[in-house]
């Protein structure tokens, strides 16, 4: 295993070198970093200064060398605004990591759970609903979904928080949800009779309504502040408060972007898990396990799911690397200054050569690393690879 990692890293180094040269040349020819300055009156002084700081009057290979020798020391240089890129890059990575990690965890957990149930109960009502929802999420434009979330998940919900309570309709809806949930939970096994499912449903309804009543009683005459944010990851008014209020505020801001990202990934993961599970569920070794008398639960989780997990985890690792390079739309819509923002700043308006290079190199390293991680996980999970 260690040899595999070392070998792959050794291969990656010349690849990244070639990549950096290529990208440097591309970036150098992608546009004029001085375009905006040229379009501004009385800017010749600023043009001269920026030309000097970006070494624009030096030949490209000298520029590359200047960039490269700095980069080796971890210095990504300064951007068009005269700011050091390093801190911006680490900050952007941290921010993106937060939302990508949270959304991936959410999407993987939900996607795998729903995918497994869908596969185990193929062609059931649950399966059809899950399929419908996945395709809906797939087809939905991200920004549109994000705006929808903002309107209902933030504005409306915050309005409700300011004057909370559960109306009769709320009682009924939540009760029905509870009923559905319990009847599904207790009726998971195919053998459970309709009557018992019904009883479970009624009990669930009653239980949920009771809980609702408690909550409603609790909420009466209270008012909460507008918790869910639609932009940024923090509210500056919390900056000087304690750890818990700050964490709460932070989560209130992460909720919507994480949901947005998770929903997109969820759709993919649930479909992928379903397909993978269907394949393993019909595998001969699953039949063998059943023939051995292994319980259905163990058959599904120990035999079918364990094997189905191999491709899923691999795809998740690769996906993670890819989204990490920038959930550009999500970050833009929620004004989150992560890798996507860095990318846009570097390339969208005036090209910012050092920033673009920093972004592209980090993204390239990222892809290499996550490919390696995917390979390692694959080898860890699949003994057939391990021994080759």
């Amino acid at each position, binding site marked *: 295993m260690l040899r595999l990692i070392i070998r792959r890293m050794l291969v990656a180094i010349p690849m990244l070198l070639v990549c950096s040269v290529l990208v440097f040349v591309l970036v150098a020819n992608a*546009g*004029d970093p*001085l*375009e905006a300055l*040229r*379009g501004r*009156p*009385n*800017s*010749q*002084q*600023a*043009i*001269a*200064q*920026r*030309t*000097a*700081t970006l070494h624009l*009057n030096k030949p490209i290979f000298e520029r590359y060398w200047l960039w490269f020798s700095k980069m080796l020391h971890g210095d990504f240089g300064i951007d*068009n*605004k*005269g*700011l*050091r890129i390093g*801190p911006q890059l680490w900050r952007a990575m941290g*921010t993106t990591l937060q939302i990508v990690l949270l959304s991936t965890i959410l999407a993987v957990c939900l996607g795998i759970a729903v995918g497994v149930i869908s596969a185990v109960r193929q062609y059931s009502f649950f399966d059809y609903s899950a399929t419908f929802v996945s395709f809906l999420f797939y087809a939905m434009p991200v920004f549109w979904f994000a*705006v929808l979330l*903002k309107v209902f998940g*933030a504005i409306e919900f*915050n309005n409700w928080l300011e004057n909370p*309570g*559960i*109306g*009769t309709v709320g009682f009924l809806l939540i009760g029905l949800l509870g009923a559905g949930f319990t009847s599904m939970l207790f009726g998971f096994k195919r053998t459970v009779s309709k009557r018992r499912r019904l009883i479970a449903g009624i009990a669930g309804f009653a239980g949920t*309504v*009771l809980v609702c*009543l*408690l909550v*409603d*009683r*609790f909420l*009466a005459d209270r008012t*909460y502040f*507008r*918790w869910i*944010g*639609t*932009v*940024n*990851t*923090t*509210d*500056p*008014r919390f*900056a000087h408060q304690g750890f818990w209020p700050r964490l709460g505020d932070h989560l209130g801001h992460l909720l919507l972007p994480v949901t947005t990202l998770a929903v997109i990934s969820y759709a993919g993961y649930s479909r992928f898990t379903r397909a993978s599970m269907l394949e393993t569920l019909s595998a001969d070794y699953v039949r063998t396990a059943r023939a051995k008398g292994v319980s259905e639960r163990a058959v599904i989780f120990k035999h079918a799911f364990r094997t189905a997990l191999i491709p899923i985890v691999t795809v998740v690792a690769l996906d993670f690397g890819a989204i990490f390079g920038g959930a550009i739309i999500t970050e*833009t819509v929620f*004004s989150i*200054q992560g890798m996507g*923002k860095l990318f846009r700043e570097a390339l969208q308006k005036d090209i910012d050569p050092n920033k673009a290079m920093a972004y592209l190199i980090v993204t390239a390293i990222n892809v290499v690393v996550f490919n390696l991680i995917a390979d390692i996980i694959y080898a860890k999970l699949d003994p057939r690879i391990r021994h080759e």
Partner: protein
Amino acid sequence: MRTTKRGKLAVIAVGLALVAAACSDSKDTKTTAPPAKGGTITYAAEQEFYTYNNGTSDGNAFANALVLNPVQPSTFYFDDKAALVMSTDLLDSAELTSTSPETVVYKIKADAVWSDGVAVDCKDFQLAWISSNGTLTQQGSDGTPVTDPDSGTSVLLFNTASTTGYENIKSVECADGGKTVTATYDKNFSDWNALFSGLIPAHVVEAKSGVADIAKAYADKNMADLAKAAEFWNTGFTADKGIDPTVMVSAGPFMITSFTPGESVVLEKNPKWWGTPALADSIVFRLIDDATQQPIALQNKEVQVITPQPNPDLLAQLEGVSGAEVKVDGGYTYEHMDFNFASPLTKQLPVRQAFALCLPRQEIVDKLIIPVNPSAVVVNNHFYFPFQSEYVDNAGDYAKVDIAKAKSTLEADGWALGSDGIYAKGGTRLSMKIARKDPNPRRASEVQLTAASCKEAGIEIIDQPNEDIFSNILPTGQYEIALFAWVGSPLQSSQKAIFTTGGSSNFGQYTNTKLDPYLDQLTTELDPAKLAAAADAADKLVWADVATIPIFQFPDLTATDGTVTGVIYNPTQAGITWNAQLWSLK
């Protein structure tokens, strides 16, 4: 309503409700709310604040100006009519005591201090002058000045954005313990009252760079010390290091108290502020770089003031926000068509005249700008805008589209209508390319409307979109007409670079020897009346030459959620926060 509906169901859970009552009163799990009233007003910034020194060429950004308006002291500020008004907070007086040589005496208020307790004084004025007068150049390792090979411009020691004005000043002298400043010019500068704005604290630069006295170092030509001071001036104020309260000091009603990169800047009342206190306790800038998301943040009460670039969708969005107060005005940035005098076609006056006569400026405004700014008008002056008192409509014949006159103008010049409906002379068809930035749907529409109108006049117009027109098209001269916008300025001294012979922003190489003296006068005239007269004379000449044709002002939008007062649009580069100290919650 909730209580009665709940009552119907309550019977089921009387017992449980009693238990709940016991629990719910014992502990309050409510999250600690931030102070709701008492004065935080949040503004949605489209770009991030990134440096306290907006005078560097790296700085010089609107985003920084918005934050710094109520933080840094300025001698004069632009009001909402773009007039320069003396800051009575900072100065007792600012007097032009002599016009030959131009001499300005500033009397700084005795109690004016930076937030670290150090007095605002002459040293700060001297630093502004030293850093931007352009006399200190970077020395290469061999001791020769570093220059930009393309423009021949020297690379300065202090990385200043512009030397305009300061380069005219011969000396900045101190008196009265630093509270009186005398600036003496060796060449008159008309916009003297725009100088010494956004002052940088000299004592901070000195302390951080280890230079005892920058003015003395300048006087002594102590290049080592000056280099140290310049190093800090250039890079020491950037926000990438976070907020250092000992660096980003304030001499305004607000001071910067917190900065979260990528998120927000918080201004709070400056305890050392000697002037009229601000109405709000705190002004917060939250970074919302996607303008279309700003109305949603407004609706979610995350921000109270937004100024996104307007478009019809955004206005419709804002209409849905209850209580929102929306206003659209024309600003200083204006769209125009610029002729290339190096082109064989557009160097001919009749061709330019014919084009000006078929350019459907009113139609462009009606179709593309009125939907966003109902009060938008065609701009008919190159030097003043409709909201200014000096504005005069000098367009004359070109005020309206006149196809017949366009044709007769061409025919009088020997052009003949070809079989393809396009005029030609000496085998040359009257076909002109309009260079414009791409992608830009609005400009594409402008060119389309122009092409349709001018086709009737027998002029063929070809759209020439390019991503980087200032780098790729304008320097090559391979175009007839350039369509772009000038980020305008109320300073008449800034006009020279655009219109004068060989001006750095005179891309079309327009030249008129009768015009140049007027442009010179615009930079040196100290009498406002004479300045306006010179600008008017210059404008008439530019119209007569049909050198460039202004079309419309870019619309600027100001919207609040209706809970704040005192937010007033300002068309200049000061931006909406020019009067932040007067913002207040209703």
